[in-house]
């Protein structure tokens, strides 16, 4: 059993598990932090961005002029943003049988894999994962395609050039493999390969293993996966949450008794508690708006935004914000808000019950109805007519490199009355803001990450008791900035095995059993014999038939006369020779009784010696030795076959035959 680790990002995993005869890809995360090295894509011409000075090498060589720009001491690539793909060289992707997706954030690299690597298998995901994943991809494609950029920089990627660049460009890994965003066509083609599954549904893969998605509590339709054969169980825990937010709660019980538990997608901010952050978010929002400022919330179009809107729904009246408009701007805003209301079966119990009242499960429906929350596909069109300040704007993309958020940062960045509040934990907010510096706008960092923290993980591991834990290397040591916090790492026994990008792990456990079925007629013919209380044995002669990873014992064919007409025998007709077998023996020989029997049969002068493995019975007169050990008995006598046979029969009296 092997694990191929294709991504080094702990919350955007991409691993391949070889288990029995199957090759299973677990998630397909796309690391978008690479885009932070690029200049933002402005929706409207930005004189500031277009007038940024070029950056050139110290030797004055100016050939990178067109590609690199400098802003407040940072160097950015002036090109279409590119993403860091999972490793594709480590394993032949055409051998991957299936891809299991755990949540919509972990499938963003799917088109790269399914469309360009020879992949021919199936992708499994839940319906909300597919639908919301499609929205995220659609938004991403839209953000990038609507601002066409002629230039695609590549000179800086030259290894000799790259090492001369300032950090972080210098330290960026695998830049040669970075790719531009996929197209909508590729998205559609990739998503067409997805087969929908429901929680706890059992999916057979080639008869070899069974895979089952389990609710993980993190997002709509998010799942953990159990991959099991008859005797082995591997659990894959991706983004999971034990907090009571909108999704169905996490199913922990089904993870019990795993041989291997692969643990990814823990919280990225282990020291921040989501409740405190929501409080911080609300109070900063209220204070800014009270002072006449605007609030910008860079966010994804689905996920935490639902919880934030719910929280604001309860909060705005108490904070006197009833008249402040909330805008949600995304090409998929409308679909996201509407989708959230129709996935009732994937929601937590409270929200599910609302559907029967019937009421919309999320209160943002009411915010929309009362015109407090308005949503627009982009800043162009209706939005510009309705736009009223001060206001609160939720928009993407959290990397601040593309999407409508770029426009708002350019628009509001100069006034200290305005605030940008970061709630998505995926990008470092300082890096995200770097190309906008100097910035007068206030910046508040309230990362809300509801995924498991280390305390919850240690409770989970105690609860489900896996034999082995495998996790990204980042989880086996404290975060670099808080190296004294020994509590911010996975602590389990035996210690967790760690992996890093481009590593192949041999998972620490061996398969020992295989299940074989016996055909009823064969079973009928067996005659079990009880050799110990509770244990019966029977000899079986049969043909082992293996097909689709299923093994069946069939009765041996009657020894038919070989048909004379055919000269060449077909392989399948080959009948094993069934010789008449000697009976099998079992039992042990009680030495004392054996000696008595020997005496009864006329042997005298018997001596018994104890050896390390058993006993030696010496028949001194007959110059014969009987060696009795746990798993063998030898009669050693000189050429006296008669005596040997006599002795053998005496020995056999003590043993059972079958």
């Amino acid at each position, binding site marked *: 059993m092997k694990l191929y680790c294709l991504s080094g990002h702990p919350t955007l995993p991409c691993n391949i598990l070889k288990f029995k005869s199957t090759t299973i890809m677990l998630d397909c995360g796309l690391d978008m932090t690479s885009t932070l090295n690029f200049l933002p894509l402005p929706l409207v011409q930005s004189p500031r961005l277009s007038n940024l000075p070029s950056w050139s090498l110290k030797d004055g060589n100016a050939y990178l002029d067109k590609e690199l720009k400098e802003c407040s001491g940072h160097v950015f690539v002036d090109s279409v943003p590119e993403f860091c793909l999972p490793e594709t060289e480590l394993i032949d992707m055409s051998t991957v049988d299936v891809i299991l997706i755990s949540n919509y954030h972990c499938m963003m690299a799917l088109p790269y894999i399914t469309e360009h690597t020879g992949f021919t298998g199936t992708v499994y995901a839940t319906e909300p994962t597919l639908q919301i994943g499609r929205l995220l991809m659609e938004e991403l494609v839209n953000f990038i395609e609507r601002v066409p950029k002629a230039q695609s920089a590549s000179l800086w990627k030259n290894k000799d050039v790259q090492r001369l660049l300032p950090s972080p460009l210098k330290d960026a890994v695998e830049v040669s493999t970075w790719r531009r965003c996929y197209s909508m066509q590729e998205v559609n083609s990739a998503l067409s390969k997805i087969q929908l599954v429901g929680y706890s549904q059992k999916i057979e893969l080639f008869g070899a293993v069974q895979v089952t998605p389990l609710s993980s509590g993190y997002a709509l339709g998010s799942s953990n996966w159990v991959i099991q054969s008859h005797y082995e169980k591997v659990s894959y825990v991706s983004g999971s949450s034990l907090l009571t937010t909108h999704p169905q709660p996490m199913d922990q019980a089904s993870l019990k008794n795993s041989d291997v538990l692969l643990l990814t997608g823990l919280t990225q901010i282990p020291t*921040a508690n989501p409740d405190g952050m929501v*409080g911080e978010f609300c109070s900063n929002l209220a204070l800014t708006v009270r002072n006449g400022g605007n609030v910008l919330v860079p966010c994804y179009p689905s996920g935490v935004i639902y919880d934030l809107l719910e929280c604001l729904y309860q*909060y705005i009246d*108490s904070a006197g914000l009833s008249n402040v408009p909330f805008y949600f701007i995304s090409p998929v805003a409308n679909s996201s808000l509407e989708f959230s209301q129709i996935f009732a079966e994937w929601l937590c119990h409270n929200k599910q019950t609302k559907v029967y009242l019937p009421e919309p499960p999320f209160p943002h429906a009411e915010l929309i109805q009362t015109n407090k929350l308005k949503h627009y596909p982009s800043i162009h069109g209706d939005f510009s007519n309705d736009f009223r300040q001060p206001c609160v704007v939720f928009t993407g993309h959290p990397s601040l490199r593309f999407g409508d958020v770029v426009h708002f940062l350019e628009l509001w960045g100069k006034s200290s009355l305005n605030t940008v509040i970061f709630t998505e934990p995926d990008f470092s907010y300082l890096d995200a803001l770097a190309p906008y510096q100097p910035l007068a706008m206030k910046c508040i960092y309230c990362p809300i990450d509801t995924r498991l923290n280390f305390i919850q993980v240690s409770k989970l591991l105690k609860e489900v008791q896996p034999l082995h834990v495998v996790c990204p290397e980042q989880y086996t040591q404290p975060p670099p900035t808080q190296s*004294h916090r*020994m509590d911010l790492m996975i602590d389990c026994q035996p210690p967790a095995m760690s992996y890093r990008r481009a590593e192949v792990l041999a998972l620490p456990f061996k398969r020992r059993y295989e299940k074989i079925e016996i055909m009823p007629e064969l079973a009928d013919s067996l005659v079990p014999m009880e050799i110990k209380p509770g244990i019966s044995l029977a000899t079986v002669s049969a043909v082992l038939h293996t097909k689709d990873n299923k093994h069946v014992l069939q009765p041996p064919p009657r020894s038919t006369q070989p048909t004379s007409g055919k000269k060449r025998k077909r392989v399948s007709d080959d009948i094993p020779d069934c010789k008449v077998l000697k009976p099998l023996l079992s039992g042990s020989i009680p030495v004392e009784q054996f000696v008595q029997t020997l005496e009864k049969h006329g042997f005298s002068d018997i001596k018994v010696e104890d050896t390390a493995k058993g006993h030696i019975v010496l028949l001194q007169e007959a110059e014969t030795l009987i060696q009795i050990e746990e798993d063998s008995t030898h009669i050693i006598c000189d050429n006296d076959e008669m005596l040997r046979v006599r002795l053998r029969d005496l020995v056999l009296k003590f043993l059972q035959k079958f």
Partner: protein
Amino acid sequence: MDPECSRLLPALCAVLADPRQPMTDDTCLEKLLDWFKTVTETESSLLLLQENPCLVELLSQALKFQDVSSRILSFSLRLAGIFAAQENCFQFLQQGELLLGLFGEAGPLGLPAWNVPSVRSGWIQGLCSLAKHPSAEQFLVDCGAVDTIFSLQGDSSLFVASAASQLLVQVLSLSIQGRATPHLGSSDGDWPSCAQSIVGYLEESLRSGATPQITQALKVLTTTFGRCHHSWTEALWMRLSPLVTCLLEKDTVPTAHSLADLFLSMARSPTFGSSDCDLWVTLAQTLSCLSPTQAGPLALGILKLHVCPQALKTQAFDVLLQPLACVLEAAAQVPGSSGLPDGTGSNPTMADALLASTSSCAALLCQSLAHLGELQALPHSPRPWPQVLLLEATVMTLRFCSGSAVPISSVGGRLCGILASCIRVQRAALDFLGMLSQGTGPQESVTQVFAILLEYLRSPESSPTVLKKAFQATLRWLLSMSKACGSNNPDPHTQPFLRELFPVMQKRLCNPCWEVRDSALEFLTHLTTHWGGQPDFRQALLASDVPELTQQLLQDPEAYVRASAVTAMGQLASQGLHATPSGPEHPGAKQSLPQELLHILSLDSEGFPRRAVMQVFTQWLQDGHPAMAEDLEQFMARVFQVVSRDLDWEVRVQGLELARVFLAQTLGPPDCPYAVALPAATPPTSPAEVLRTLGRVQLLEFAFRALFDCDRPVAQKSCDLLLLLRARTAPGGGLQGAECNPEAVTVEAALRAWQAGEQGQPLGELVPEVVVAILRTLDLEGLQATLAESSDHVEQSPRSLLQDMLAAVGALGGHEADCY
């Protein structure tokens, strides 16, 4: 006994003894027992029984166990005990073998009823009452009760077990009392037989090695030493001490808690505390061999002793300091540089206990902090009090909890992980930090204290309860700083702190969690009360949005927050610190603060904000707040009109308090012969004028209506108010009343209607003469006396109890049962 009660008693006894009429109300039986106890305290039980043979009958009825419910059986056992407490009555009951029947082996012991805990409890309580005289001791031995008591110590019901242990102590002391101590040598023969069997049992228990038995024996000893201070207790200790001290020699002391209790009980007893027995040595030994968590309560107990060797106190204090010393040690940049007194730090057991798990670490630290806090409040707190060490350790604990500590040592790293966001420890440490504000500290420590407080106030990770504690601790430190520096001399810490504080307060007032908004408002109220007059404070406050945010919270969806906002606004306005209503960003719309509060008083659906409004109005009126001075009469009239209709009696009481203040101000200072004569600015108002004013502001109507309020406190308050009014406006002479005035007659009729509970018409305008007439007519003193008696004074009489019990089973025929 009241003859009426005597008359009712036979019927009651018959009811109680009748199994067909089950008595369902236990509380009645309890009250009955209480009553008998009171009666027998003053009267002879023997006479009582002789005069009321029904009682003896009731007791003998209880002997027919099959027929009696467990409730009545338990009751009878206890009743018999109460009567038998007097020796002659005991003899009387013994003659009939009644007591032996009830408490002896032929009694309820073998019956199914014995399985009911209340029966076992009744048996014990009966014996407890009975074991008062020498005859009782013999009786206990004869009826074999002592062995039963032994077994009941391990009873499944904790109440029974505990009562059995108490009874054992009582029997022991009964048995020994009166004998000369010197005779209680070590030989068995010197002890009275009953005492001998109890002591033997204790010895056996202590030797048994079984924790429950040992604990029981220790409990008996603890109670004995706590209760009896005779010299025989010392003899008892001499005999048992080797067995007890043996327990300390085990690796882990299983009964540590009980042992600590025992030693402390001994140390408090004058018998041991003063003598030169080796108790102090034992205590020192115990302190050192118990685990840190077990030793804590013992150490606290030792430090609370009035008489105790200094060395032992020092040792005990060290035990309490050690967890905090460990925290400091773990945080020290260089090992051993924490500046602790020798022997305080680097205790391996302590470090182990702290680092074992979050729960043990939190338990130990919280215990230590709570104990130290308790000690600090004592008048004889340990000296020298290591204020600096404690300040630093507490601040460090809080930093470990918030994750802001960056320790170098591995112990520090682990402690950091264990304590991170541990709310329990945070609360305990903040509490203790607040208490430490009573002492001073060097500049450096105080700076650290304010820094950590600000960190907690600011951190989004602080839970609402932690934040509340942080507010409380902050307030205490600010107060102590201003006290230390005097009001004229601004303290160097407060000013920068206040500048940082208000932005934090703004954020807290906007928090989505109502508890946070509420405690922030309470904190603001306290701050304003203490520093509202200080220019620096005023400047910092007015530069922030805090006043506007507070005003906005008057409309908060949560009632508690609205109430706190009302109080805070009241305080801000008192100090002239509230937001001006017509700011440029709030055009028009806004009304003045008094109007807004009046609005809350009239319309708020919850009581708390309305009560808060009344308190603010009262405070304003007392302080002569300018907002009230403007058109006072009209405003008051509006308030009294609204408040008299309020459904919450507390609001109405507050309204009467406001009325009292208004009345006092209208009347002016009372004529006091000894008052320093000030030149009167305004001539005293005439009584008629006063009454006219009171009429105009609707105060009289409100007060008269309240006089017959269905809630007693309202009526009482109104009565007091009207008495004051009468004393000042209609004393003997002065204004003539108009008794026969037809108007007065109408008013009296209206009052009578109110008294009868009818709504009635408003009184309309009241002429002073009519008011005086009514005040004279009303029997205010009588009313006051009636109201002063609690509403159930009639129902609490024994006669009423007996009647009620009889009525409950319908034995009083047509008599209607009142709801008792």
